């Protein structure tokens, strides 16, 4: 069957071809019978409605600006200086002040997580300063802070 149409039709290749055709006919009849049953018994979902919805959706998405996949920058949400639905505006780093549950100190909310990480002694970079010499501890934690700020710019 890999040969083209002009190859001589040997009895063996004819037999192979007729076998394939028979199998293909059987498979087609199987699928036709199943689909006929599904359609007659009312089991198919409204496939047309689904196709239509998908068509509309694809058309809408394709008609967008090329940056459409990046939903974060679209529309009203992208501009963080604009007022929110309650008419409020907020700074990029949250200015709310919370009291740390670990040490009790007031911390700016936008910087709470890095503070807590060091405060609780968790995380890869921050380690409790008491376990090593004070110099080494200071170097490591300051490196960690720099590293984190560099790698994860977006909040």
């Amino acid at each position, binding site marked *: 069957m890999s040969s083209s149409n002009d190859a001589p039709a040997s009895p063996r290749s004819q037999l192979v071809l007729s076998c394939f*055709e*028979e199998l293909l*006919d*059987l498979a087609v*009849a199987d699928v036709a*019978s*199943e689909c*006929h*049953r599904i359609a*007659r*018994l*009312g*089991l198919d*979902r409204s496939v047309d409605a*689904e*196709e239509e*919805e*998908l068509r509309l*959706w*694809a*058309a*809408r*998405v*394709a*008609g967008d600006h*090329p940056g*459409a*996949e*990046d*939903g*974060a920058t*679209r*529309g*009203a*949400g992208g501009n*963080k200086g*604009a007022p*929110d*639905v309650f008419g*409020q505006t*907020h700074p990029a780093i*949250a200015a*709310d002040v919370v009291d*740390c*549950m*670990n040490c009790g100190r007031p911390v700016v909310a*936008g910087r*709470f*997580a*890095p503070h*807590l990480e060091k405060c*609780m002694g*968790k*995380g890869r970079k921050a380690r409790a300063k008491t376990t090593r010499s004070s110099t080494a501890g200071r170097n490591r934690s300051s490196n960690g802070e720099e590293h*984190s700020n560099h*790698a*994860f*710019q*977006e*909040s």
Partner: protein
Amino acid sequence: MTTPSAPPPCAHLAAHRLTSRPLRFLRRCLRVRPLGRPEIRRDAREVPRCSPCPASSQPPPRLYACLTCATVFCPSHAASHAASAPAPGHQIAVDVDRAELFCAACGDQVYDPDFDHAVVLAQSTALHPPSASASPPSASASPAAPRKRRRVDYRAWAPDPAEVALVRSADPTTSASAAEPAGLRGLNNLGNTCFMNSVLQALLHAPPLRNYFLGDRHNRFLCPRRTPMRHRTTDAEAKAACLACDLDEIYSATFSGERTPYSPAKFLYSWWQHATNLASYEQQDAHEFFISILDHIHENIKDDQPKSHEQGDGDCCIAHRVFSGILRSDVICTNCGFSSTTFEPCMDVSLDLDSGHNNCLGVANPKPHARNGMSSKVSTLMRCLERFTRAERLDAEQKYFCERCKERQVSLKQMSIRRLPLVSCFHIKRFEHSTVKKMSRKVDHSLQFPFSLDMTPYLSSSILRSRYGNRIFPSEACDSDAVSELPSEFEIFAVITHSGKLDAGHYVTYLRLNNQWYRCDDAWVTRVDEHTVRSSQAYMLFYVQKTLYYKACERAAAV
């Protein structure tokens, strides 16, 4: 999609059912091959042939046997048999390889409930022979119908004027001062914590979870695990933190009516005390966080229940009650048809995001050609679910050991949903981690998802029924999963999207409240239209059962 219903029979089928002897004799000829394929053979080794066809011609794909005289013929000779047969009543035949009825006079396949009933019985007998050593699922042993929900009589109720005044004054959504729905409040980013904020927003507005906490079902002032909020020095005291209590506090804060952004600092602190391996100042995966807090809530409050329950039973804690469903996994030997079934509880469904079919709808606009083809990769949630419940072939190294054949055989594995949770969370696997290439990447393809979702095609009942030919009246199949009366319609209420790159990205949650979509980007809550949500890159989708989803009522006509 409902249970199959028999269409009205054609005149010939109706006449045949009245005048001919019952189809009982057909049952004796019904033989079931592995994987449930029924066929009609008088003798196990019979090879049917069409007598009118010349001996040398290609065998036809379908052969029919007349129900009255058992003559075998092919479709091209069907009409002549019906017309020329000596006695009337030779119009109805049966496809010998597929056990489907055929009306030779109409030239079309027809359906009869009694015949399907016989086929289903034969299939169940073949699948679970009475003397088999394999144990069928224990639920199938009972002949009783599956547990029906008790129905209560409907009683009409109308409020009196005093009640109307009370409700109107107390309801923040209808009182004049409230412009926006209750519980809508921004969450401050505490430093790369958008993954936490996005999941919290979705949880805050999951109806059953919201109702649980607002209904004071877990009171943080009465919780036994609560220790006074003092400086905790020992680990023992630190581990007494209860995530459910902290969640209760967030509910109180966000539904208080206060609209300035809230800082979920205590929640972060409590979570870090529990999930020590994830506790660090860096971006986390929102889905991992979601699973982590559900797990810890379970650990915190499972002991509050009087009896201990199996996980997945749903009664151990509110997290399972809301999110836990049951997945069914069937492995079927293609050689002998023996199937082994396992059930596992799941808190969400993780779906692969393939590149999806290319825009086979016929490109409606000329733009995609000008672009790099990004927009032509369209996957849909329903197709992902179809793929999830598709029968997968296990062969080569993955051959399964069949207990009946006592050797490894090529098998089919198929997943389906046995029980749907109150809230279905779908996690779209956008982050690929390849150990081979030693790299991770994010899959950016867009995903189409519906706002109303019918999960019926993915239930075990539907999957089982279609596996055995979609026969009418499957109620007597011995597998209790074959019948399903459970509600399966869902409405979306939250979408968590991820934008940006793998390790430097941003999570945003879209919430649907009172039929209006809101975008919750940390502290910034804004209104958006449907279109923005549909074209966003969904990472986690939250659907709630339609019966628990309250559609917004008109403000003026409230109460």
